[in-house]
Structure formats: structure tokens, C-alpha cells
């Protein structure tokens, strides 16, 4: 098996699981050295060939596997030889960190610029405008909507944004990089 050290990282395991799902996980979690066919993998792992193919294709779509086709001279059948390309995983996760950072920044603005009301019974949150339309009564249960403080959410978002920026070496947008 290749990439053993990489696959010890629980976040990387989670990432692969998210991509290929539980049925594909045996394929994703045990990348062989060198090239392998889908049939070989299915036999080795004791899995349904279609499940193996599905997992390989998802990995391919995410740049984590590649294949080349060989034609058998006698039978004319095509064989797919797969190579796992897990060297790309760290770059992919870096990209995910950037995407998460962008989303957090957008969400923080939304959280800061809106007031929220909560139905404590149903745990549903409404923006101020919505709450007003409903006369500050929950459209679901009719209960009273109460003013909701989102400071804790905003704090948690702020902290994670700061950590991500430091880790990714991305300066805050509001403060230009080249300050003299």
C-alpha cells in the first residue's frame, strides 16, 4: 500500500470518505503501489466491481486517480490501468481551506448585518424582516419569536477566519497588503 503516512491523517480520511462514500472507502483507503485494474482491486478487496469502478471514477474526477487504456490483442477487450495520485490530496485540501475561508468571510458579514429572531420551540431562526412579516410568531407552532444574540457565532467565525488567514498567509481584505 502507498501513501500510508498521508492516510493516517483523520482529516484526509474524512475527506476521502466524503468523496467516495462508505461503499467506496475500501478502495480509497488502500491505494496500491503502481498500476492496478478495476478487476484486480475488486478481487483483492472482495468488493462488487461496480462499486470499485464508481469509487475510481470519483477519484478520477477529483484528480486523485488517473488511468490508461490497453487493448488486449487477442480478445480486443479494453483494460483500464489505474494509478492513484494521492500526491494531489494536500493541494486539494489547501484549496478547500481557501474556499472555507471565503465562505466564512461572507457568512460573517451576513451574521453581522442582520438581526435574528428565534422560535425556541422549533429551533428555527428568522431574519428580522421575516419575523416581522409573521408578526413575531412562529409560522410553524405559533409560539412567540424571541430576539436572538449571535455574538457567539460571530466570535467563532472570526476566530476561525483569523486562524485560516494566518495558516494560508492571506491578509485581511480590508487592509491592503502593501502598507507603507
Amino acid at each position, binding site marked *: 500500500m502507498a501513501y500510508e503516512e498521508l492516510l493516517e*491523517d483523520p*482529516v*484526509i480520511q*474524512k*475527506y476521502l470518505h*466524503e*468523496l467516495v462514500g462508505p461503499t467506496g472507502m475500501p478502495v480509497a483507503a488502500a491505494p496500491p503501489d503502481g498500476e492496478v485494474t478495476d478487476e484486480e482491486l475488486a478481487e483483492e478487496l472482495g468488493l462488487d466491481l461496480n462499486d470499485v469502478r464508481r469509487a475510481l471514477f470519483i477519484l478520477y474526477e*477529483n484528480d486523485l486517480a488517473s488511468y490508461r487504456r490497453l487493448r488486449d490483442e487477442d480478445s480486443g477487450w479494453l483494460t483500464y490501468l489505474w494509478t492513484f495520485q494521492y500526491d494531489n490530496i*494536500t*493541494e486539494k*485540501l*489547501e484549496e*478547500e*481551506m481557501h*474556499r*472555507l475561508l*471565503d*465562505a*466564512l468571510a*461572507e*457568512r460573517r458579514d*451576513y451574521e453581522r448585518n442582520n438581526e435574528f429572531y428565534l422560535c425556541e420551540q422549533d429551533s428555527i431562526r428568522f431574519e428580522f424582516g421575516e419575523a416581522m412579516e409573521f408578526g413575531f410568531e412562529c409560522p410553524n407552532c405559533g409560539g412567540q419569536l424571541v430576539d436572538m444574540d449571535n455574538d*457567539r*457565532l460571530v*466570535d*467563532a*467565525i472570526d476566530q*476561525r477566519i483569523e*486562524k*485560516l488567514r494566518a*495558516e*494560508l*498567509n492571506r*491578509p485581511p481584505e480590508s487592509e491592503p*497588503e*502593501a502598507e*507603507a
Partner: protein
Amino acid sequence: MAEDLTDDEERGLELITREGGIHQSDFWKELDVSSRKGSRIVESLEEKGYVEREDTVYEGHNTYLIEPVLDPADLDFSMLMAGDMLSPFVGDEEIDANSDKFSQWIMSLAYQ
């Protein structure tokens, strides 16, 4: 830190990484070495692939902006997690900052 670096280079790389980027004209002053020595340190770090330089104008003169080269393998990927939830944008092409999945992720971040 890396083993193929001299003490001065290591100090220099530490400074560049800490600052996230620094102008060469500030670099040698901060490091308390001559400008010539400073530029030798940066050249060596660049050659070994630890930093990148680009031409820039800073305080009215030409200099370099030195930035660290990040190896994605050194990143702390746990920042994608909130509790035991992975970033909901993994595997999705679109980013919806107001999706329910992201709300759950943020709740987990705030109240884990």
C-alpha cells in the same frame, strides 16, 4: 526547521515566514546583517525553494518582495473541521455561505 540551511538562513526563513512576506530592504535590517549578506541569504533560500522573490517598488526605490513558499503538506488541515464535521463545501462545486449544511457546521464550531 530544514536541515539544509545555515543558522543565518534559518533565522531569515523564520522572519519571512513570521511576516508572511517582507521587502528585501527591511529584511537585512531586521536580521541585523549587511545588505550584501542579506541578499546572499535570500538568494540561497530562493535557490533551495523556500521563498519566492518578485520585483517591487517600496518607499520609492526598487527592491524585492520576499514571500515564503508554502508546502500544502505542512498545512493544518484540522482547520477544515468543526467538531467532527468536515467543511460542507468538500466535493461541491458551488459555495453557498447560507446553506443549512454550513449553518450546522458553524453551530458545531461555536458550541462544540
